[in-house]
């Protein structure tokens, strides 16, 4: 099982992931329409780019916007989860070994202790988000089964990775579960809300351009 998952299937999964998400980005920008969106994207590109950069940058910073500052606990949980699921997989020693074996590239890795701290923080952040989803009426009313399945998938991915790295008992079960979740994420990302991995940037760029070009960006910078 592990061999299949880390063999051809992994390659297919990565291909689906990268090609699929690239297609989503291309389709997104090709579908923008200056008359329907009422934003002069091309003629005012300079203002648009400035607006887009400010819009993306502000929201990537923890507490960088009024929105993040208004919800400090959520912001902490959110960034813990996202830093954990983006940075850790990229620079984990275990993953670097796989890259070395598979592609022959010397991939940089972070110290295991840092990876542990970030993963556990991510797991706690994710659990906090689940609890918040169930407790707050304004979030509960929006929540559907897909939201819960997505969180379950990501938290299983995280938890199984942490257990596999530290608990030699039932190692093969945990590592197989971990890789299976990882492959599922890669395979489904372009077709589910996981596409926000790239679409977050797309929609933030669009609204940044909207404010940068049309809604005041030529006079003042919007204070995100």
């Amino acid at each position, binding site marked *: 099982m592990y061999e299949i998952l880390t063999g051809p299937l992994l390659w297919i999964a990565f291909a689906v992931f990268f090609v699929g998400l690239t297609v989503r980005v291309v*389709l*997104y*920008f*090709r*579908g*923008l*329409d*200056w*008359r*329907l*969106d*009422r*934003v*002069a994207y*091309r*003629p*005012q590109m300079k203002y648009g780019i400035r607006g887009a950069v400010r*819009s993306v940058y502000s*929201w990537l910073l923890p507490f960088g916007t*009024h*929105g*993040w500052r*208004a*919800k400090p606990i*959520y912001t902490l949980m959110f960034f813990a989860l996202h830093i954990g699921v983006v940075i850790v997989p990229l620079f984990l020693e275990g993953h670097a070994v796989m890259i070395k074996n598979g592609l022959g590239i010397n991939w940089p890795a972070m110290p295991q202790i840092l990876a542990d701290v970030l993963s556990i923080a991510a797991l706690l952040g994710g659990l906090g988000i689940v609890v918040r*989803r169930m407790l*707050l*009426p*304004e*979030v*509960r*009313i*929006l*929540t*559907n089964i897909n*939201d819960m399945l997505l969180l379950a998938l990501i938290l299983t991915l995280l938890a199984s990775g942490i257990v596999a790295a530290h608990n030699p008992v039932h190692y093969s079960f945990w590592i197989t579960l971990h890789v299976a979740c990882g492959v599922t994420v890669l395979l489904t990302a372009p077709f589910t*809300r996981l*596409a*926000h991995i790239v*679409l*977050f940037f*797309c*929609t*933030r760029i*669009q*609204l*940044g351009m*909207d*404010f940068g*070009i*049309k*809604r*005041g*960006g*030529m*006079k*003042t910078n*919007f*204070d*995100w």
Partner: protein
Amino acid sequence: MPEGTLCNKKPVSTKEELNALLADSNGRTYYAEMEELEVDSDALWALIQKTLKSRTKTWLDICAHCGLCADSCFLYSVNGRDPKQVPSYKIQSTLGEIVKKQGKVSNEFMRMCMDTAWSKCTCCNRCGSFCPYGIDMGVMFSYLRGLLHSQGFVPWELKIGSGMHRLFRAQMDVTVEEFVDTCEWMVDEALEEWPCLEIPVDKEDADIIYMINAREAKHYPEDIVEAAILFHIAGENWTMPSDGWEMTSLSMFAGDWEACKMQVDTVYESMERLRPKRMVATECGHAYRATVIEGPYWAGRPDGKPPVECLHYVEWVAEALESGKLRIDPSKRIKEPVTVQDSCNYVRNAGLRDCTRIIMKHMAEDFREMAPNKEHNYCCGGGGGFNGIGRYRKQRNVALRMKREQILATGAKFVIAPCHNCWDAIRDLEEEYEIGIKWSFLKPLLIKMVEVPEHLLPQE
């Protein structure tokens, strides 16, 4: 009865149709007919396929259901944090469902959508600035209004308002003759106090073309004279067009995009005909949004800009005060605590947050900021057409509570509102809640406060 005589999918195109609508008191027959109005699902779906492209589609698909938009919405806050007032829920349960069902929705559903689109969202766009993805539900509600309008599900007053724009190129029935006449007799009345005052109509190549809200021509002509006096004192070379002076757009509130285009085309034609250097707009938020921010796109102008540079009144006043064209008599500055209600349409959606602060620096000794303020200010409670729809008066009155709390928190009993909609909302707020406040546009205050050059004063 699929199509009513008053409530139908056809926009107003004759005076008879308009009069019939006006004669229907409170829209009683209109709304009764609406309950029978057939939904043309094929046309609705065709329109969606033509107009719902990647921006809106992605907004609907990608929402993470995080609920961060909830507290950004004043209607959620003032309605006891009702989860059904969460912006994301409001748009997903209306537009989201219509799209999911490919337009196959019932009459009852469309009426629910209408009630949501016009009484649970003022298109203030505040949620858009609090969503991590930048999903602007105000923009989507405006889009939804357009879909509903195409199917005839639009509040009675807005069908009338939009019809007015179609027939008169103004939100009220003011003809070119009536307008020019109004300017003339208003100046005549003011001449005793302001010798040489004039409202130059259709003057070519002026520095400024001044444009207004039809209400001023119809019900508050003193506002036009006040503007004239201030231009006179500032020594501006200005004019007003006899035709194409109306900047407002009830059709924007109605989602009648065809009428929106008709209206701005008229305004831009007058700019092109008279070739002014700049345009100054009266104290109205949505009028500025319609003519300056959205209008260029309705008119199909690829650079997204109107034919000439356009200033909201607060921009002109700030500039005139800073440059010394207008000077405030220091002894006449406002002594009591005063606060400002900035319109969403010019402060959040047009970047004019600094203007009123500059003006207050000149005019007021004790200016109090509301919290939140500037581009994060809350809607007055009556924006997006909310003020004018009788069917939603109760909901509108609840909506005023946020502004009431904001004003009370400043400790000021005087509110300056350079926007017709905000001005109305604050007037109604005082009527409804009696918190003991006064409110005003800028013009009447400025006239009382500015230093008048000797040569403009009447000879004794």
